[in-house]
C-alpha cells in the first residue's frame, strides 16, 4: 500500500509463455518419437539425444561466449529445434554428423539472425538440408524398421516408399504400414498416426491453428489426386503421397513453426498451399525423391511478403 504500482491496462495476463508453447510442441512430438524408438531402436535414441543435447549446448555457448548476453536455453526452443532435427534424420547417421547439423541449425539457422523470433528460416530444416547436401549418402540410406533393434550405424537398410516410387524399386508398402509407420524413413516421420495424435494435441491446446497443416495436406491430396487420375505411372495415389516421406511431420511440426510462418489465417492458407504444390513438384519432377524440407524453406522465404500483402479480415470489412 505504501507504493502502489501504476501501469496501463490490461492489468491481468493469460499466463501463456514461450516455454509453455515449446513444451506443448515437445509433448506433441512424443508419439512420433516413441514410434521412432520402437522401429529404429538404439540408433533413434542416439540420434535424437545427440541432436537435442548438441542444440542446447550450442545455443548456450553462443549466447554465453559469443553474444555475451542472456542465456535463454530454459525456454525450450533450442531443445525443440534439436528434437525436430533429430526426428528428421535417419537413425543410422553417425553422431558427429548430427552434431554438425545441430551447429548449423542453431548457429547459422537461428543465432546468426538474432535468436528466437528473428530467424527467417526454420532452423531445424536449415540443419537438415545442410546435412542432406553435405552427406547425401548417409542422409538417404534408411534403416529397415526392426522393432527394438540394438543396431545403430550397422542397421539393415531399406528404401523409402518415395524412392521406391521414384526409382521404380518394386512393391510399395501397404497403406496400413504407411499409416502406423512400419516403413523406411527419417526416424520421426514414419508414423502418420503418431503425428496425427500430436496434431490433435496441438489443436486442443490451441498451440497452433488448423490452417497450415490442413492447407498443405489438402493441396497435396488434391494435386496428386489430379495427377494420379491423369497418369498413374507418373504419380502414385494421393493416399500414398499423404502418408509417405516427411509430409506429415513437415505439415504438422515444421511448417507450423511460429517464427517462420505467416501471421494470419488467409496468409497461412496461401503459405500451406504453396508448400503443398512445391512438395509435389519436387517429388515428381525434381532430383530428390522428397521435397517437403525444400518446399517449407522456400515458403519461409515468402513469409515476410505474405505478411505484408495478405491482411487479416478486418472487423466490418464485409457488412452482412
Amino acid at each position: 500500500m505504501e507504493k502502489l504500482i501504476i501501469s496501463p491496462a490490461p492489468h491481468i495476463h493469460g499466463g501463456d509463455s514461450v516455454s509453455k508453447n515449446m513444451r506443448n510442441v515437445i509433448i506433441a512430438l512424443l508419439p512420433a518419437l516413441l514410434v521412432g524408438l520402437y522401429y529404429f531402436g538404439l540408433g533413434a535414441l542416439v540420434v535424437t539425444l545427440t541432436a537435442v543435447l548438441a542444440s542446447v549446448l550450442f545455443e548456450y555457448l553462443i549466447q554465453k561466449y559469443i553474444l555475451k548476453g542472456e542465456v535463454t536455453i530454459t525456454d525450450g526452443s533450442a531443445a525443440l529445434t534439436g528434437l525436430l532435427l533429430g526426428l528428421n534424420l535417419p537413425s543410422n547417421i553417425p553422431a558427429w554428423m548430427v552434431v554438425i547439423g545441430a551447429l548449423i541449425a542453431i548457429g547459422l539457422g537461428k543465432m546468426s539472425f538474432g535468436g528466437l523470433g528473428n530467424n527467417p528460416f526454420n532452423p531445424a530444416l536449415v540443419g537438415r538440408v545442410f546435412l542432406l547436401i553435405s552427406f547425401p549418402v548417409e542422409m538417404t540410406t534408411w534403416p529397415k524398421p526392426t522393432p527394438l533393434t540394438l543396431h545403430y550405424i550397422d542397421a539393415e537398410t531399406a528404401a523409402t516408399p518415395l524412392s521406391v516410387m521414384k526409382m521404380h524399386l518394386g512393391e510399395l508398402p501397404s497403406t496400413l504400414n504407411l499409416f502406423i509407420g512400419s516403413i523406411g524413413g527419417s526416424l520421426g516421420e514414419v508414423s502418420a498416426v503418431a503425428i496425427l495424435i500430436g496434431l490433435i494435441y496441438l489443436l486442443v491446446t490451441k498451440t497452433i491453428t488448423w490452417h497450415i497443416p490442413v492447407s498443405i495436406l489438402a493441396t497435396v491430396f488434391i494435386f496428386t489426386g489430379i495427377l494420379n487420375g491423369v497418369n498413374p505411372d507418373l504419380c502414385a495415389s494421393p493416399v500414398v503421397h499423404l502418408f509417405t516421406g516427411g509430409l506429415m511431420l513437415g505439415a504438422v511440426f515444421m511448417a507450423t513453426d511460429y517464427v517462420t510462418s505467416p501471421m494470419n489465417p488467409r496468409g497461412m492458407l496461401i503459405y500451406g498451399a504453396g508448400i503443398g504444390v512445391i512438395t509435389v513438384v519436387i517429388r515428381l519432377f525434381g532430383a530428390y525423391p522428397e521435397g517437403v524440407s525444400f518446399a517449407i524453406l522456400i515458403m519461409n522465404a515468402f513469409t515476410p511478403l505474405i505478411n505484408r500483402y495478405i491482411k487479416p479480415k478486418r472487423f466490418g470489412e464485409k457488412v452482412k
Partner: protein
Amino acid sequence: MKTFRMGGIHPKENKFSAGKKIRTAEIPKQVAIPLSHYVGSPSESVVKKGDMVKVGQMIGKANGFISANVHSSVSGKVNKIDVQLDASGYKRPAVFIDVEGDEWIETIDRSTDIKRECNLSKEEIIKKIQDAGIVGLGGATFPAHVKLSPPPGKKAEILIINAVECESYLTCDHQLMLEKGEEILVGVTIIMKALGVSKAVVGIENNKKDAIEHLTELAKSFTGIEVMPLKVRYPQGGEKQLIDAVIRRQVPSGRIPIEVGAVVQNVGTTYAIYEAVQKNKPMFERILTVTGKDAPNPGNYLVRLGVYLQNVVDQAGGVPAGTGKIVGGGPMMGRSLMNLSVPMAKGSAGVLFMKDEESVRKPIKNCIRCAKCVSVCPMGLEPYLLMTQSERNMWPEMEGNRVMDCIECGSCSYTCPSNRPLLDYIRFGKTTVGGIIRSRK
C-alpha cells in the same frame, strides 16, 4: 448461443461480489464532485464558494454538445471550486462541498413505487435525460442524449441494452438487474419511445443466469423487449462487438452504430434514465463494485458522486494487506490508481485490489510471431505489427493498418506468450495518429 464473430478471450471471471446486495455507502463530511467526466468538455460551474446546495441541484452546466450537466450529490455548503486528481490520473475541476444533512430538492420522487406509464413526447424524454446529466455508465461516459438524437437521415431500427458486463470481477450491472429489473425494463420502453423503435434486445452474458431468468420473466409484461443470453467472451461489452453478437451486423471502420440501425445503451444508464424520466432524479449516484482476490468484503455499493473512494473502501473493510495495485474499473480496461483520494465519478464501476504478485508485469521477451495477438483481436488488426510500427514512429503505416479501429480492449497484451506490452505501444500510436488526422481537418 450467440457471441461476436471475431477474436476475443475468456479471462477467469472472479466475480466474488456476485449476488451481494447493494449497500448504500455512507456520506462523508466532504465530497469533491468532478465537473468533468473524461469524455467531452467539462461542465461550467454554476455555484460559488459559500452557496448552499441541495441533493439533486445542478452545480455544473453542460458546455457544448458532447457535455453533460452535473448535479450535487449531497446537501451542504460549497467550500471551494478547485482541481482534484481523478480516477483517470488527471487533475480536473471539481466542486468541493461540506456536507450538512441530506436534503433533496423537492421535485425528486423518492418513493420506491414503480411508475410504468410515461406520457411524455420523444422530445420531452430526451430533454429530461439531457437535463439530468446522464452519461453512459459502461465506461466511455458518453452523454446519453447524444446517442438518442441520431444525425439527420439516420433511423434507428433496434435498441440494444448492454448488460454484458464482460470485465472480470465487476458485478455492479449484474446486481442492479437483480434488484431493479422492472425499473430497468421501464427504462428500456422509455428509450424505445425516444428513439421511435419497436424492438429492444437486452444482451446478457450467460454467466448471469439468475439475471437472465429474472428479466426474461419480467419482460413478458412488456412488448418488444427480448432478453438474449450471450456466450461469455471478452470484449463482448464493446459496442461494435455487442451489435455484431446480437444482430449480426458489423459497424464499418470509423462509423457509428446508427449506420447499421442500432443504438446501444448500458443497463446502468437505462436505470438512470428510468429514474430521471419517471422520478425526476438527476444522476448523482451509481453502483460501485469493491472487489479483489483478497478483498475482505467484496460487494456492491450505491455511492454518491464525489465521495472519495477511500471512504467507500473503508466501509468495505479497507485495503487488504499485500495489495500491489489498485485498479479503478475492471482488470482489462480499468486504470491503476495512484491512491484512493480520488472522487467517485459517473464512470466509476469498480475498485479492484490486485495482489503484489499479480501487479508486476513479467519480463518482456522476443516476439516469437505466434500470431495469437492477431487471432484474439476483435477488430481484425495485427497488434504485433502495430507495436513494431509504433516503436519506429511509423505513423502513416499505422494509419494504413487501421490503428484507429483499435478499441483498446487489451486482448493482445493479455494473450502474448512473450509478455509484450502490445497495447501500450498501440495506444501511444493511436493517440499520435489521431492527432495527425485531426490536424488535417
